[in-house]
C-alpha cells in the first residue's frame, strides 16, 4: 500500500485487530491531544522503523512516555527470528517425513512459509501497513540470499572439482604430446601472464594520462564527450574487442588468419583502458585542490605539480584500480579465443602464432574432449579453479591497497 505524506492512514484500517480510535485504544484512557494524535498516528508509530535494533523511545517530556510502553500492537523483537527457525524446523521435518528432503527445497519452502507466516501474524497484531513492511523486509533479504546461492554453489563446485588435478604437474607441464591423462597448463599460465602483462603495459599509461587530462586539463564539450565515451566503452562486448584486434592486425599485416599474442593484448587493452580511466579519474578527483594550489604558489610548473604532487598522492587508489582492472581482463576468454586461439605447447613469441591462455585452455579442454573425457574435464576445472584463485587474489590485493592508502578524510 502507498501512503502519501498528506493523507494519514485512517484509524480503522490502521489497526485492524483493534476497535475504537487510535488515540485511546493503546492506553485505555483519554490521552491529552498531541500533534501526532491529530494526524491519526499511534504513539508507537513515532518510533523509528528505519532502525529496528533501537526501538526509538518517545522523547522525554512526552506525557505518553511516562506510562508503561504498550506492547500490544507491536510484535516482540524475538518473534521474527523465532518464526524463521520454527518455519525451517517445520519444513525440514515435513520434508523428512515425506522422504523428499533436500537442502535447497528446505531453504526455498522455509522462505515461503516464513514470509506468509510473518504477514499473517503481523497483520493480526500490528495491522496491514506493518505487515506489508515485514513482508518486504523478508523479500529483500531473500533477494540477497538468492544472489548468494549461485556464488556459494559456484565456488564450492569449482573448488571441489578443481582439486582433482591441482598438482605439481598441472603447473609445470604443457599439453605437448599429451593424449589422455596427465599434462598441464603451464603453457597457458605463461601465455596468460604474457598477454595480460602486455595489455597492462599498454592500458595503464594510456589510462592514467587520459584521466590526468580529464581531471587536470580537460574542459568543455570535449571533456564531456570523452567522459561519456569512456563510460560507453566499458560496455563493449569482449568478443567485439577481440574481433577488432583481429581485423586490425589481419588488415594491416595482410594476413587473413592472423593469430598473435600482441593482437590478444590489444583486445584486452581495449577492455581494460576504460576501467583504468574511470578508477584513476575518481582517485585524482579526491586529491584536494589545496595541494595543487600550494604547489602552484611555490612556482612549480603544472606538469611537475601533477607528476610530483597529484599522482603520488593518489598512487594507492590508482594501484588498486589497476589491480582490479587486471582482474577483470585476466579471465576474459572470448577475445583471446579469437586473437590467440590455443596450442598444446609453449609459445613464448608474442608477435606470431597461436598461444594458449588459461581461460581459453579451460574452454578448449571442456569443449573438445578426447579420451578419456574425465581427464579433459578435470583439467578444465583445475584451470577454472586456478583462474578464480588468481582473480580473487588480485581483487583482494586491490581492495587491500585501496584500504591501506585510502585518503585520511573524515568520511
Amino acid at each position, binding site marked *: 500500500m502507498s501512503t502519501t505524506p498528506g493523507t494519514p492512514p485512517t484509524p480503522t484500517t490502521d489497526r485492524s485487530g483493534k476497535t475504537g480510535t487510535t488515540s485511546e485504544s493503546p492506553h485505555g484512557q483519554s490521552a491529552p491531544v498531541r500533534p501526532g494524535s491529530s494526524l491519526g498516528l499511534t504513539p508507537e508509530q513515532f518510533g523509528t522503523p528505519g532502525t529496528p535494533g533501537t526501538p526509538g523511545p518517545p522523547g522525554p517530556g512526552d506525557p505518553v512516555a511516562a506510562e508503561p510502553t504498550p506492547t500490544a500492537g507491536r510484535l516482540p523483537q524475538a518473534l521474527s527470528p523465532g518464526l524463521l527457525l520454527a518455519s525451517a524446523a517445520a519444513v525440514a521435518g515435513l520434508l523428512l517425513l515425506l522422504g523428499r528432503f533436500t537442502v535447497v527445497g528446505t531453504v526455498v519452502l522455509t522462505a515461503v512459509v516464513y514470509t506468509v507466516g510473518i504477514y499473517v501474524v503481523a497483520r493480526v497484531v500490528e495491522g496491514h501497513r506493518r505487515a506489508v513492511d515485514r513482508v518486504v523486509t523478508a523479500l529483500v533479504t531473500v533477494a540477497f540470499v538468492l544472489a548468494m546461492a549461485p556464488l556459494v554453489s559456484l565456488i564450492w563446485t569449482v573448488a571441489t572439482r578443481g582439486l582433482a588435478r591441482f598438482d605439481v604437474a598441472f603447473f609445470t607441464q604443457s599439453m605437448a604430446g599429451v593424449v589422455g591423462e596427465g599434462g598441464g597448463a603451464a603453457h597457458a599460465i605463461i601465455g596468460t601472464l604474457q598477454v595480460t602483462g602486455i595489455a597492462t603495459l599498454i592500458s595503464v599509461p594510456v589510462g592514467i594520462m587520459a584521466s590526468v587530462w580529464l581531471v587536470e586539463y580537460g574542459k568543455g564539450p570535449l571533456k564531456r564527450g570523452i567522459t*561519456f565515451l569512456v563510460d560507453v566503452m566499458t560496455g563493449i562486448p569482449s568478443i567485439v574487442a577481440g574481433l577488432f584486434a583481429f581485423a586490425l592486425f589481419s588488415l594491416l599485416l595482410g594476413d587473413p588468419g592472423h593469430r598473435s599474442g600482441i593482437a590478444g593484448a590489444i583486445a584486452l587493452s581495449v577492455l581494460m583502458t576504460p576501467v583504468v580511466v574511470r578508477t584513476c579519474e575518481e582517485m585524482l578527483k579526491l586529491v584536494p585542490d589545496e595541494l595543487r594550489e600550494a604547489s602552484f604558489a611555490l612556482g612549480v610548473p603544472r606538469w611537475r605539480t601533477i607528476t610530483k604532487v597529484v599522482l603520488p598522492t593518489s598512487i594507492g587508489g590508482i594501484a588498486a584500480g589497476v589491480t582490479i582492472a587486471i582482474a577483470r581482463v585476466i579471465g576474459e576468454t572470448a577475445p583471446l579465443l579469437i586473437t590467440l586461439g590455443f596450442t598444446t605447447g609453449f609459445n613464448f613469441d608474442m608477435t606470431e602464432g597461436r598461444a594458449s591462455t588459461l581461460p581459453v585452455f579451460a574452454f578448449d579442454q*571442456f569443449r573438445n574432449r578426447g579420451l578419456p573425457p574425465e581427464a579433459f574435464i578435470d583439467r578444465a576445472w583445475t584451470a577454472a579453479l586456478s583462474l578464480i584463485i588468481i582473480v580473487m587474489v588480485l581483487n583482494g590485493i586491490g581492495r587491500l591497497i585501496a584500504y591501506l592508502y585510502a585518503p585520511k578524510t573524515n568520511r
Partner: protein
Amino acid sequence: MTATATPPVAQAPKAVTRRGDKIFSGIALAAALTILVTLAGVAAFLLAEGYPAFGAPAEDLGADSFVALVGPLLFGTIYSSILALLFAAPVAVGIALYISHYAPRRLARAFGYVIDLLAAVPSVVFGFWGITVLAPFLVPGYVWLEANLGFIPLFAGPVAKSGFVMLTAALVLAVMILPIMTAVCREVFLQTPRLHEEAALALGATRWEMIQMAVLPYGRSGIVSGAMLGLGRALGETLAVTIILSVNPTVIVFNLISSQNPSTIPANIALNFPEATGIGVSVLVATGLVLFVLTFAVNYLARLVASRGFSGAAG
C-alpha cells in the same frame, strides 16, 4: 616599500609558457583522444573486415542473405538478454535495497564486496557451472513446467533432458549481470537525500513506505540505467551461452525448455571463428559489427538516462 613591483610579478605567470607543460598536456590529450580513436577504430575495422559479407552470394553465407543469417542470431541475442534482464532486475533492486537500507551498517560494505565477487568470476567458469550444476538442477523444474504449464507455448515440450536450454542460459546470464545492476542501484539508493527519508519516517511511514516515497522515486533513473547496463552486458556475453546452449543458429524459437534453441551472435562467433576462413571470417566479423552497434546503442541510452536522471532528480 616595493609594492610597485608586484603587478608585473602577478602577471608574469600568464606570459610564461613552459615547454614541459606543453609536452605533458599534449601527451595527456593524446591519451584521452586515444579513447575516441579506439572507438572509431573498432567501428571502422569491423566494417572494413566485415564489408564483403553484406553482398556475399548465398552459397558462401549458408543463408539466403546476410539479413536472413543475422536475423535469428539477433533474435537469440536479444531474447536471452531480455529474459535475463527480467529475472535479474527485481533481484538486483532487492539486493541494492538490502545493502543500502536493510543490512546492518557494519556488514553492508562487506555484502557489497561479496556481490562484486560475482562480477569477478570469469564467464567461462559461469559456463562450466551452468552446464554442470545449474542445468541438471533445473531439469525437474522444466519437467514440472511442461506438465503443468505446457499449454503456454513458452513451456511446450519436449523438455531437453540435458537442461541445456534457453531458460538455463538466461538464468546464468541473469546471475552474471546482477553485480553491475546492483552496483548502480546501490549507488543511487545511497544518494537519496537523508532529509527525504527522515521526513517520511517522521510522518509515521514504515520502512517500506519510506522506500516507496523517498528512495524509489529518487533512484528511478538509476534503476533504469543499471538495467540497461545489465542488458548491454547480457547482449555481449559470450562464453556462458556458448557452453550452455546446443547451438542451431537458423531457428527462431520462443520455447524456453526444448532442445531447439536459437543461438546468439557472440556464441556463434566464438563457436565458428576458430575454423572460419575467407568469407566465413567476414560474415562473423559483420555479425560482430551488428552486435557492436546494438550494445553501443544500449549503453549510450543507459548513460544518457543516468546523466539526465541524476541532474533532474538533484534539481
